């Protein structure tokens, strides 16, 4: 690693935080079953943030500014950028805060069965697994992109941080197509930190099946209020609301009034009470704070507020870093039981979003199964849902069946009652 302390000293900088990232990425792109493009990325960059503590009219501030450099840039080039950033930091009037306690650690290689295999070989293993399931002429893989990444991250700071880790992951996307009776497609993305060949095969199989069903769906649901069932990758999107509302960066400006001990689902919960834990996706946060599993919500009661070191300091809470991964136990209702009652089970949206500001979750329906509660199922497509978490959170149900995704482990399905649907 470059001797940043020497450069900073020559620029008059006393407080800084540097993150060096070396990225190697093998990438394969397919159209139908043919390899259309091979790519390899080999880059090395550093993000440097410099801080300036100053006073104005008796108030103490800590300003900061950041720059990005290549690891091959000369010390003179880096110093030129640092000087410019340090000058800019003097105009950033952020209320003073202390840094989180600095951590030190030898390099941590995150445990994974992806380690020890050439990145390009992993890409081939995944493509082979995906195409093994592509054996139906009616519903098939239209296109596929695979990115196998290795990131070596090293963070150092003027206040003692010196941590590093190596993380491998596989991410990508594929499009499934079915030409008859209607020509339709389903977009699917994936992300794993293991050689999840079994999981990717299941995902392909289920996506192809879903696409076959969408090809048969022609009717739009009738407009009205429905009990909605969401499953698979749409379930964690609902919990984004709680993760964001419980972040210091959302609470400090007043977007959220969450405080530890609050009943986040309201005072009278008729459905499942939420139990959620924060989990780490890397050994350290982007600020070099050690990450570990922590309680987040227990029986509907908020236990932890997370967030950046600055906003956490302002709120006077422990600086634990920002968490993105949520872990939930199984819910109380079997998935089949949810579908045995009248409901609209939406399995594919063009895009599904939760807005943590106003609590609305919404999306256009590409495929949904309309269950009448008597065993009859109708395939529907088109229209949209537009619901509010404030109206639905006290009476939601979580499935007994669970799933594992990159940033989520927990129930595979969620039932939300009385959600508005735009349709025929």
């Amino acid at each position: 690693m470059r001797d940043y302390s020497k450069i900073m000293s020559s620029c008059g900088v006393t407080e800084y935080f540097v993150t060096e990232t070396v990225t190697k990425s093998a990438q394969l792109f397919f159209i139908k079953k043919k390899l259309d493009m091979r790519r390899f990325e080999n880059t090395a960059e550093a993000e440097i943030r410099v801080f300036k503590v100053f006073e104005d009219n008796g108030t103490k501030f800590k300003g900061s500014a950041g720059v990005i450099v290549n690891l091959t840039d000369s010390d003179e080039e880096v110093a030129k950028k640092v000087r410019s950033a340090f000058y800019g930091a003097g105009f950033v009037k952020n209320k003073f805060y202390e840094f989180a306690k600095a951590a030190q650690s030898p390099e941590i290689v995150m445990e994974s069965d992806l380690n020890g295999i050439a990145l390009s070989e992993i890409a081939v293993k995944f493509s082979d697994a995906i195409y093994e399931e592509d054996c139906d002429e009616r519903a098939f893989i239209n296109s596929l992109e695979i990115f196998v990444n290795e990131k070596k991250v090293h963070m150092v700071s003027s206040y003692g941080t010196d941590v590093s880790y190596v993380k491998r992951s596989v991410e990508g996307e594929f499009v499934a197509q079915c030409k008859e009776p209607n020509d339709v497609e389903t977009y699917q993305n994936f992300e794993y930190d293991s050689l999840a060949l079994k999981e990717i095969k299941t995902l392909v199989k289920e996506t192809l099946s879903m696409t076959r069903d969408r090809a048969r769906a022609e009717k739009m649901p009738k407009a009205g209020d429905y009990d909605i069932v969401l499953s698979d990758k749409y379930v964690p999107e609902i919990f984004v609301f709680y993760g964001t509302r419980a972040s210091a960066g959302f609470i400090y400006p007043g977007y959220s009034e969450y405080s530890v001990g609050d009943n986040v689902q309201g005072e009278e919960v008729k459905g499942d009470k939420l139990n959620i834990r924060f989990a780490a996706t890397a050994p350290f946060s982007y600020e070099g704070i050690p990450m570990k599993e922590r309680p987040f919500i227990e029986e509907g009661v908020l236990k932890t507020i997370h967030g950046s070191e600055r906003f956490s300091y302002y709120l006077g809470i422990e600086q634990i870093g920002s968490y993105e991964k949520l872990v939930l136990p199984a819910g109380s209702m079997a998935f089949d039981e949810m579908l045995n009652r009248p409901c609209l089970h939406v399995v594919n949206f063009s895009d599904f979003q939760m807005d943590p500001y106003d609590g609305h979750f919404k999306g256009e329906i590409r495929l949904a199964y309309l269950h009448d509660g008597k065993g009859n199922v109708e395939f529907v497509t088109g229209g949209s849902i537009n619901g509010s978490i404030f109206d639905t959170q006290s009476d939601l149900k979580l499935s007994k069946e669970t799933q594992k995704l990159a940033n989520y482990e927990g129930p595979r399905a969620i039932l939300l009652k009385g959600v508005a649907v735009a349709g025929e």
Partner: protein
Amino acid sequence: MKVKDSNYIRENKPLFKELVSELLKTYEYASVLVNDSFGMRYSVSKTGANVGEDDLYTAKGFVVKVYEGGCYAEYSGNEISKEEIKRILSFVKEELVTMGGSREKSKYPLPADETASFSKSTDYEIDPVAMGDEAIIAKLTEVHKKGMAYDERILNCGVMCAFQKYSKLFLSKNKDLEQNVMWSSGAIFVNSKRGDEVKEYYTSASVLGGMEILDTIFSRVEDASKVAIELLDSEPLKPGEYECVCDPQTTGMIVHEAFGHGVEMDMFVKDRALAKKYMGEYVASKLVTMHDGNAVNQTATYFFDDEGTVSSDTVIIDKGVLVSGISDLQSAMALGTKPTGNGRRESYKRKTYTRMTNTYFEPGTDKVEDMIASIKDGLLLENPESGMEDPKNWGIQCMVNIGREIKDGKLTGKIFSPIVLTGYVPDLLKSISMMSDVKELDGAGMCGKGYKEWVKVSDGGPYIKARIRLG
């Protein structure tokens, strides 16, 4: 003033020429795209300020492309030297072109690689670097304070601006192209609060140029604050089909998300776009003529794309008839069509895809007040939030923040929020019955391909009147 060239590119150009020359000894086609971009993002809000280079806007590196075995392979790196050239040549030969094992490959012809050589720069009025961090932050702080002072119910007024200055060099056997471009953009986010619900209104502006954009942003803060307060009284909309007037930003979202993505011709190659089957047919009202390209000066205006194809102005819909898609070089080769200069990368680290640039409807002849007066029971749609493409089936998913009620040709003052637009794209486009006489484009946002590959785009058009299903 003209945007200056890059020291990095100027100093290392002989090395990149040597790299291409060496690669051409082994491969029938080889090219290199070199990028040196620098972009800053500034923001001021109630929680403080942020200043820094943005990792989407700041990058210095190159991508090598070679033709091998009938198709293409790429290497992205950010280290160049005599020794590194030797290592890259070895890596390309021994590891890159062998990736994918024995799987069957697509077959493409060689690119035409017509001879071209130029160096061009865009213009700007106020250089952000010369203006300096202090003056930019002071201006944003002034806007922020004005927004906060508008009404005590304003929870926060965030103001941001950003700029990117990029220089690119494209070298192949017959091409030596250089361009230096700068765009700037700014936005205001105003939040108000009703119980647990936080309402947000957003307004933005952009320019192919520099910090001259700040005056435009400053002029909008009062209106933005006013609407954020109005949103406190908004209600959910009863789902149904409505006569609507869309503001230019909502028109832009429909142009971009609902139709534009569907004419990106890499989707034609994959058989993923319904538009391929509708060439030469009416897909919209005869009032509609749609463009993409460099006929306007906005944030996605450039001289050549990331594959060395000179940019152009493409007419996509001509008086309601779909006449052309837009394409990158590789897709054009697969389809036997002419590339339109729409091959774009998120950065030198990523693959080229067919991407929109500045995409818009031409204006019509109507006055906005006449358009509103023509509606008995409908909505004025404003402030688009997001959208998602569906090129295969032409389904619409667009979210807008505001629907203003129109009764008997007049705005009643009632607001509905949020609103989801849904339906079938040609139904919406064919229902367009009026278009205003002025068009506006906004390029403050970024566009993704699916959920990744972010590039700068602009979109817009006039106010349009159409029948739309809303939820």
